């Protein structure tokens, strides 16, 4: 969280590729993610921000507007607003209007809960706003398993409302998991049906994702399936550049790298502002190790972006250790920093899902230490929205606890002796 006294001087090569320039950082992010609140009506099993409960230190409406003013001044053209569920902030619509009327385009990421027909009509008539609906299964069974009962219906209803209101080109954002990789064609069909664009993104072991990653992350053969599908169908499919670790597939058989910068943008061209104003390198890296500063405590977002010690370090040439000697390093660049960190792998080693299998080897070696949980804003007590996936794991935990207790005596008088919920 150190902020440097003065702006670091960066020697830039003349010319050089765009990627080389980006790796050295920019005066402002190209775009960034801004989590408006940790409050959420859902309890998705894999939530990257461990959301559920509002943090009492959340930025106020005025503080949020001050951030927007700074983004305008820095000419950040586009901000991705998420959470938690951003639309359950009472001032969400006010902040949305404020942003788009101050030269900051907005895409907001939502589970759809507040997108009734009236709101959809308002959105359809607002310029510079994009809507992204989260969906992790092409059927209620697959989706609701991780996102909670009724969440599939909520998302589809929102898509329908947007379409009916004439909103053009909403996004459907899917986190690719072991359970939904077989539904890629169906996801595309849903997007086509509602006039939306499909977006596929990578599951990272971040936030609550760390707890479910072993069960949910795609198997090696599924990664191949995903890569092949993107090569064949990906022209109208967005990926947020989140699969550059799969680009090594393309090197071997000439399929080519997937579209995108194939670059880890953390702290260089993107970053995260969290609900209390903390600035992290990336939304998948909400952890003290990747905390650059705070907009309130450190003099504003621009100061943090330009002068934080963490970002300065990320903008210097990175060591990638053993990976640099791999023939496919140019394609994958060592993979995702957050994925490595949260699986306890060293940052200068292979990605846990390295397509050559080096990540699996590293995971199996048993040397890794998982980092302690970062911020956890999960709901204290599960609600009726709790996804079945979490219910099952809790039941397993309860059974495991029960198994360690001594057996109840046959003479126990209390009929509930030994009974655990």
């Amino acid at each position: 969280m150190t902020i440097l006294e003065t702006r670091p001087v960066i020697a830039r090569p003349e010319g050089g590729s765009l990627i080389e320039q980006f790796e050295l950082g920019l005066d402002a992010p190209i775009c960034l993610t801004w989590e408006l609140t940790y409050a959420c009506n859902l309890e998705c099993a894999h939530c990257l921000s461990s959301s559920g409960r509002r943090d009492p230190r959340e930025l106020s409406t005025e503080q949020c507007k001050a951030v927007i003013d700074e983004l305008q001044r820095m000419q950040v053209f586009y901000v991705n607003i998420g959470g938690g569920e951003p639309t359950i902030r009472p001032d969400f619509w006010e902040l949305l209007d404020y942003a788009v009327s101050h030269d900051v385009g907005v895409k907001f990421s939502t589970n759809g809960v507040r997108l009734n027909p009236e709101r959809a009509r308002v959105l359809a008539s607002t310029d510079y706003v994009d809507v992204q609906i989260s969906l992790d299964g092409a059927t209620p069974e697959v989706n609701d398993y991780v996102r909670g009962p009724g969440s599939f219906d909520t998302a589809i209803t929102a898509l329908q409302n947007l379409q009916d209101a004439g909103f053009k080109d909403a996004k459907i954002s899917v986190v690719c998991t072991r359970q939904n990789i077989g539904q890629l064609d169906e996801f595309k069909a849903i997007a086509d049906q509602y006039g939306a664009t499909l977006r596929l993104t990578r599951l990272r072991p971040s936030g609550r994702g760390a707890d479910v990653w072993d069960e949910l992350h795609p198997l090696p053969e599924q990664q191949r399936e995903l890569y092949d599908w993107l090569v064949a169908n990906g022209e109208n499919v967005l990926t947020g550049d989140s699969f550059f670790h799969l680009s090594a597939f393309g090197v071997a058989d000439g399929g080519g790298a997937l579209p995108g910068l194939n670059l880890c943008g953390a702290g260089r061209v993107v970053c995260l502002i969290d609900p209390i104003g903390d600035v992290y390198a990336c939304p998948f890296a909400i952890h003290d190790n990747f905390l650059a500063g705070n907009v309130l405590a450190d003099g504003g977002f621009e100061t943090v972006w330009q002068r934080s010690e963490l970002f300065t370090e990320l903008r210097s040439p990175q060591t990638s250790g053993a990976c640099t000697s791999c023939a496919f390093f140019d394609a994958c660049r060592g993979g995702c920093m957050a994925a490595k960190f949260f699986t306890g792998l060293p940052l200068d080693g292979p990605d846990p899902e390295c397509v050559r299998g080096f990540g699996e080897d590293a995971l199996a070696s048993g040397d890794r230490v998982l980092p302690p949980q970062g911020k956890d804003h999960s709901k204290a007590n599960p609600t009726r929205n709790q996804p079945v996936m979490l219910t099952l794991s809790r039941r397993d935990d309860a059974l495991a606890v029960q198994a360690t207790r001594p057996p109840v005596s046959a003479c126990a008088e209390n009929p509930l002796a030994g009974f655990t919920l």
Partner: protein
Amino acid sequence: MTTTDQMLAEPWDLSPAVALRPEPFGAMAYHFGNRKLTFLKRMQLVDVVRGLSAHPDVRRALQAAGVAEAQWPGYVAALQGLAATDMIRPRATSEAHSVQEGAA
């Protein structure tokens, strides 16, 4: 006339929906309407693009930016690339006080 020659004689402007943001190595152009993002990788090109509206034709914008004539084909090709994504637009000829009316 070649396409390059044609364009050299035409007046062009930055599209109103485009914002130009300086970068250490050039500039970033973002089109709020079609959401295209284009990097201008040389300061000289940025000067040309910024100067388009102030000149009666592309030729004079290139000259004002100090671009050597030998490089004009490359720069015009770049401008055509920008035109293809509506980053720049031909100047409307119906303007009452068009710059080209007073062209030398």
